[in-house]
Structure formats: structure tokens, C-alpha cells
């Protein structure tokens, strides 16, 4: 049996996940930073948090998996995209482990982790993927060796949109779940800017406008209208991409995949095309959020595909890096 340890540190979450080569999830330890200020996440604050909790999260993961460090066969870490200082905490820990125990190391793409984890756990063969999280908002399908982007946000992500709006309402991080609950109490749709360009979405106008209306309207109606507008845009571009790619399955991945309204809208749209929709359900739902398990999974997939491990002095981190720049050898 091969054991893989994955380290996640792109944004708020510091996570360590351990899986075995049958993809049994042995542990999923995490510590999530609750930002202190009202401005959202500060890279320095995130790095500070991660370095404070790193060792404990690591020990917790090993303890739950009932393994010792020397039992680990492969180390993987999130190389980006994310906040530079936060990324470096995870990378440094991973390099240290790989060096000390002389293990292969794989720097992997965080967004690719969301995608592959969800596709694997939903047992989908060749889906269109709607990746919706704090760091990503994109529609992808596998084509010629890579996950190609068929549509995406041209400015902020849907996660950012909800978190920023929630901050304006004085709600803590993460804002998405609270907005979902508030939206259920909304009764009236307030007209907000709807901006779709080709297969892409633009959210900043929506955010500005909704924020300006906070003191003028019922906040439940506003939450409903904001969510409804953002999701209608996403479902529309997903439908466009679905027709262009002719896929038979849709998989929703990332933190916002937990939102039931989004899931139901996508399902309603997909029914018209006879297309199956999947997302993580039940206990697995927690894996929609950032975690070390999806990082470990990628480490395992590269390893099994025969990709050579990365030299320690080439294990860089990237604040910006697109999913469609990543080779996906296990799907070829």
C-alpha cells in the first residue's frame, strides 16, 4: 500500500490530507482562518495563521490515519493559485518532509484538485465541470490532454462576490452559506445588473450595485436577488458550454457547489438536455471546501501515471496559474 500526504495552504485553509493508493481517505485535518478585519483575507495574516497551526494539523492528520511520518510514500502540496506568503508555508513544510524522509514530491494545482476529487468521487467519466469557489469560477471539459476552459469569470469569482457582499452586511467569513440561508427568506426580486459576455460572466457590476442598495432594501430580498442573478448567469453560460461540448454529464465542484439553489438550477437546466448532474453529497460535502485530500489525490494520480517527481529546487509556488496549463497524464 502506498500512502500519500497532501498539503493545502492557498488561502484561508491550512489542511493536511492522507489517502492510500486505493483512494481511501484516511484523514482530512484542517484549520481555517477567520479573518479579523473587515477587508477580507490578508496574505500576511493567512501565512501567520498557517505557520502557527501547521505542525498541529500535520500531527492530527497522521494521528487520525494512524501513521508515522516515515510511513508516508509521497508528498504533494498546492503550488497555487493563491496568496504567495500562504502558499510558501505549505510548500516549505512539504519540501522539509520530502527532504528529511527522501520521498518524491509533487507540486499540484489547487483548482485541478477540486476538479479531480469531485469527478472521482461522483464516478463521472467525461463531464463538463462547473468549478465554483473562492479562487475559481470556470467551466471546463477535458480535451486533448488538459482541462480546457470553456467559460469563466472575467473579473471576480462567485465566492468573492458572496464574501464581499456578506462583509458589507457585516456577516463573517465565509459569506456564501449565510447568503444562501438569507435568500430563502427573500420574497421579491430586485433588479440587478446581469452581465454575460459570450460564455463568460462579469460579477463586479453586480457586486457594486447590490452593495449600494444595502441600506435601501430588505436584506433578505437583496440576498435572494444577488444569488439569483449570479446563479442565473452561471447556469446560462454552463448551458452554452454544454451545447458546445456535447457532454452528457455535469459535475459541480468547489465550495459554492454546496449551495442547493445552484445545484437545483443546474439540474433543472440539465434535465432539458437529458444530462446527469453530480456533486459531493452527504459526508463528502465537506470536501467541497479547500482540503489536503484533493492535493493528496493529485499526488497519487501523477505518481500512478508515471510522472517523475519534481526536483526539490524546482518546487515553486505560483500566485497565478491557470488550470489549462496543467498536463493531466492520467486521463490520456
Amino acid at each position, binding site marked *: 500500500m502506498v500512502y500519500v500526504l497532501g498539503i493545502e495552504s492557498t488561502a484561508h485553509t491550512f489542511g493536511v490530507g492522507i489517502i492510500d493508493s486505493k483512494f481511501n481517505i484516511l484523514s482530512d485535518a484542517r484549520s481555517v482562518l477567520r479573518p479579523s478585519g473587515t477587508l477580507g483575507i490578508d496574505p500576511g495574516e493567512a501565512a501567520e495563521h498557517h505557520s502557527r497551526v501547521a505542525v498541529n494539523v500535520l500531527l492530527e492528520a497522521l494521528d487520525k490515519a494512524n501513521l508515522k511520518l516515515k510511513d508516508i510514500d509521497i508528498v504533494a502540496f498546492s503550488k*497555487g493559485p493563491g496568496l*504567495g506568503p500562504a*502558499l*510558501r508555508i505549505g510548500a516549505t513544510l512539504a519540501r522539509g518532509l520530502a527532504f528529511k524522509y527522501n520521498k518524491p514530491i509533487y507540486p499540484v494545482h489547487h483548482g485541478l484538485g477540486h476538479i479531480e476529487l469531485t469527478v472521482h468521487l461522483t464516478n463521472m467519466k467525461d463531464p463538463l465541470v462547473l468549478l465554483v469557489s473562492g479562487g475559481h469560477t470556470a467551466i471546463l471539459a477535458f480535451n486533448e490532454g488538459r482541462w*480546457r476552459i470553456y467559460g*469563466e469569470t*472575467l473579473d471576480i469569482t462567485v465566492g468573492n462576490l458572496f464574501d464581499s457582499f456578506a462583509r458589507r452586511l457585516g456577516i463573517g467569513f465565509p459569506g456564501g452559506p449565510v447568503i444562501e440561508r438569507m435568500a430563502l427568506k427573500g420574497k421579491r*426580486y430586485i*433588479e440587478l445588473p*446581469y452581465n*454575460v*459576455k*459570450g460564455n*463568460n460572466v462579469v460579477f463586479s457590476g453586480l457586486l457594486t450595485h447590490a452593495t449600494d442598495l444595502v441600506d435601501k432594501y430588505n436584506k433578505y430580498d437583496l440576498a435572494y436577488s444577488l444569488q*439569483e*442573478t449570479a*446563479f*442565473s448567469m452561471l*447556469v*446560462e453560460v454552463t*448551458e*452554452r458550454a*454544454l*451545447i458546445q461540448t456535447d457532454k452528457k454529464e455535469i459535475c459541480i465542484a468547489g465550495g459554492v457547489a454546496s449551495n442547493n439553489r445552484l445545484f*437545483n*438550477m*443546474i439540474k*433543472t*437546466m440539465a434535465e*432539458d438536455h437529458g444530462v446527469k448532474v453530480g456533486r459531493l453529497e452527504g459526508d463528502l460535502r465537506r470536501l467541497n471546501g479547500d482540503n489536503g485530500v484533493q492535493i493528496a489525490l493529485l499526488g497519487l494520480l501523477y505518481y500512478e501515471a508515471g510522472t517523475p517527481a519534481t526536483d526539490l529546487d524546482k518546487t*515553486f*509556488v*505560483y*500566485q*497565478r*496559474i*491557470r488550470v489549462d*496549463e496543467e498536463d493531466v497524464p492520467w486521463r490520456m
Partner: protein
Amino acid sequence: MENVVVGFVNKGRLIHKGAEANIYLLDYMGEATVLKIRVRKKYRDKSIDRYLVRSRTYKEAYVLEVAEKLGVPAPRLIYASINGGILIMSYIGGEILRDLLLHNMLSEKEKEFIFRRLGMYLSRLHNNGITHGDLTTSNIIISGKKELYLIDFGLANLNSSDEEKSVDVEMFERVLLSTHTGEAGKLFRWFIDEYVRYIENPDEILRRYRIIKRSGRYHAQKS
């Protein structure tokens, strides 16, 4: 009138089911026409749905009329019901540019002519505040005489800023890169060469275009 159109639909032949509209081929008083109906979407709030169907039908009708005045080849608008989400326009016989390129059915000369013309036509729309919003090689029909026609204006913006114009240009380049990868550079150069020749404020639009292109949607940035 809506009922009349519904009657037409029964006689028409469905030729395309898009993400938001169905397209029927229809004999309308002896002329070959296209009937475009934007369909309701069950997944979204009724007021958003009503708003989108109306505003897109309106925008498309408006742009078809302006295009005719500006000498930008596009179907001629024959009938519009904004509330019903219905347009009737002249039928353009020909092939979709995307297919012609993918199947290698155009000579280099024809390609250069088409992409230069496209640059000129887009600049005319932009100079009048109109961005297309979904400029792709699927939304261009090449007639038998190798003249190009622009279609599908539902995502147009009628009052566009320079930023929106540069987004229109940059998104078109991305479509070329993803759909016509091998020849994208060449096609885009023909297009942009003619576009900047006629656009009213080329420096500002090119400046914004470069910023969007650089803004990091493209390449990895090591930290």
C-alpha cells in the same frame, strides 16, 4: 400577432436549437426567413427570465436595424415582438465561418478578405457604441458570394465603454486561439489591422486590450 407567429412556427422547420433560442426556417410571404424565438428558462426567477428574453430580443432587433443603416451586413429585420421574444429576419444562405475554417474550405485570399472586412465592420459598430458581446466564428455566416454576415446580437451592448470594446476584441482573439489555434495569430492580425484603421480611438482601446490580455488570465506567474 403572437398567435399568428405560433402558427408560422408550425409551418416552419426547426434548424437550430441554441442555448437560449430556437431557430426556424420559414416561408414568410414568399421570402425565405428565419424565425428566432427565445425560450423561457425554468431554472431562473420569472422576473429575470422576462427581463432577459425582452432585453435580448430588443437589443438584437435594434442592432439589426442599426447594422443596416451602418452598412454592416447582417440579416434584415422583418418583424419583432419584444414581449414575445420573437424575431423574424431574412435568411442568409451560406456556411458558418467556424465550419469553413475547420474544414479548410477557404483560400488564404478569402480568409484575409473576410477577416479584414470583419475588422472594418466591427469598428463601425463600436464607433456607434455597439459591442457584439458574443463575437465568435460561429456567429458569422459566409454567403455563397463569400460576403460575411454578422448574426446573434442578443448579448450586444448598445452603449459601450472603451473597456467593453476592448473586451469584445480580446474575447474574439481568445475564441480564435481556442477554436482555430494553428492560424489564430494570422487571422487576428488581419482583423485587428483593419479594425484599428477605422476605430475612433485606437490608442485607448488597444491600451485596454493589452491590459486585459496581460491581466493574468493567461499565464503562470511565479511567486
